[in-house]
């Protein structure tokens, strides 16, 4: 068994990287895949909170990197709701310099044999933390929001990923508000596809259930009533190679030119 190693990244902070990792990890495990999620946001870890695992952390990624625990198994936290779902948490007291790309590659190499999926949650930014997160990955998911700065940063990240030989990253567009798109107050899916020109893995609508899920430590993918939950379940199926039609948000087609004008004053 050799795992698919996927880094989830965005450049800009706060667009939903960690939310995406938590939901994809949970969603894949719900489909009987063996999944480990690695939080590489050292010093600003959040993935454990979203998974409701904070109180169970003993060892972390840095302990594993520095061989301060017997094996990585000691640091892995097993989810209590789903079989086959594990978290390798980040250290909260160290910073990004505590880890090297070589250590990440070695840890992922060890994990590879035991899992179907390794999801790496990347920190924001394009510095060493990003480099470490990408180093062991062979695939990438770029998360962005329908806002000009987020799309700009996503574009930058796609360039950097391609320089690291991840030529075909997949796009997750998070926090889309169809009402705003309809009024042409928000970038549409088509506008973003125009710029980024990479394969769209899924569109997640803005959903207050996400906030509730985040605070409860229970990924929204468990919630059968939530639109965002449904979107993440669809993304999981697409990641597994199923052809799932995109959810309809009743949006009108491309209004790119108009937006461009509005946002750039010309």
């Amino acid at each position: 068994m050799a795992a698919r190693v996927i880094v989830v990244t965005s450049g800009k902070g706060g667009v939903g990287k960690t939310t995406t990792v938590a939901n994809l990890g949970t969603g894949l495990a719900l489909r009987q895949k063996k999944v480990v999620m690695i939080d590489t946001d050292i010093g600003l870890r959040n993935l454990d909170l979203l998974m409701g695992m904070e109180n169970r952390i003993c060892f972390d990624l840095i302990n594993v990197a520095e061989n301060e625990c017997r094996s990585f198994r000691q640091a892995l936290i097993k989810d209590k709701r789903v079989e086959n779902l594990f978290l390798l948490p980040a250290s909260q007291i160290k910073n990004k310099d505590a880890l090297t790309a070589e250590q990440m590659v070695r840890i992922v190499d060890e994990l590879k044999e035991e899992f179907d999926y390794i999801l790496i949650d990347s920190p924001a930014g394009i510095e060493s933390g990003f480099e470490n997160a990408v180093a062991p990955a062979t695939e990438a998911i770029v998360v962005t929001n329908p806002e000009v700065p987020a799309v700009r940063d996503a574009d930058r990240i796609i360039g950097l990923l391609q320089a690291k030989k991840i030529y075909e990253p997949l796009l997750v567009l998070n926090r889309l508000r169809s009402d705003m798109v309809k009024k042409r107050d928000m970038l549409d899916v088509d506008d973003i596809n125009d710029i980024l020109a990479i394969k769209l893995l899924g569109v997640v609508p803005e959903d207050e259930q996400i906030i509730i899920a985040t605070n409860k430590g229970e990924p929204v993918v468990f919630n059968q009533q939530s639109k965002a939950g449904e979107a993440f379940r669809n993304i999981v199926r697409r990641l597994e190679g199923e052809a799932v039609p995109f959810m309809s948000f009743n949006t009108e087609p491309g209004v790119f030119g108009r937006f461009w004008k509005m946002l750039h004053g010309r």
Partner: protein
Amino acid sequence: MSFATKSLFSEQLVFKGLKQGLTLFIPEDKPFTHWLGVLDEQLERAKSFFRGGSILVELGERKLSPRELSELKAVLTKYQMTIKAFNPLAKKLFSARMKMDEPAPSGVLLVKGTVRNGQRLEHNGDIVVKGDVNPGGELIATGDIIVLGVLRGIAHAGVRGNVQAEIIALTLAPVQLRIAHIYSRAPEGMEVGQGPEIAHIKGETIVVERL
């Protein structure tokens, strides 16, 4: 194509102050070597005036062989003059012309795929992009820039002072255009044009026209 370039003493070359700078007009008739001789004499007479100057040369439709070019340069070097650029009056698109970039341009750089935010391509010669140039992407060429897609980033053609350089895109929607020493920003409220467009220098500004 003929210019009103002959002076009363038809055996003298005309220098004119154009917006781009002092321009030497070399008529299209008579062999080039003839005019070189005339030029040499003329400069000899007015040595101190031209010494150390940098001029433009208007050749009209005449094409120079590499040998003729080096002969022209040799004459000018004698009076410590240099050539800034050729054919400031040329309006023709895609006309074959001399580029004055040193060292010699090393051909065309073909870029396959999108030039993304944070990516900067510099090339001594022309750049052709088979794809888009996104905001934050930069193309810098001593020659022309051609984008077979949407140009949304920054393009700087003729970066070493070639005012003849052109920027062409299937959709021209840049943050900024730069040709030679001239920078320009799209005017406020301007619609993004439909269809291919070309940007080049006219007078002292960059103008965009449908291709």
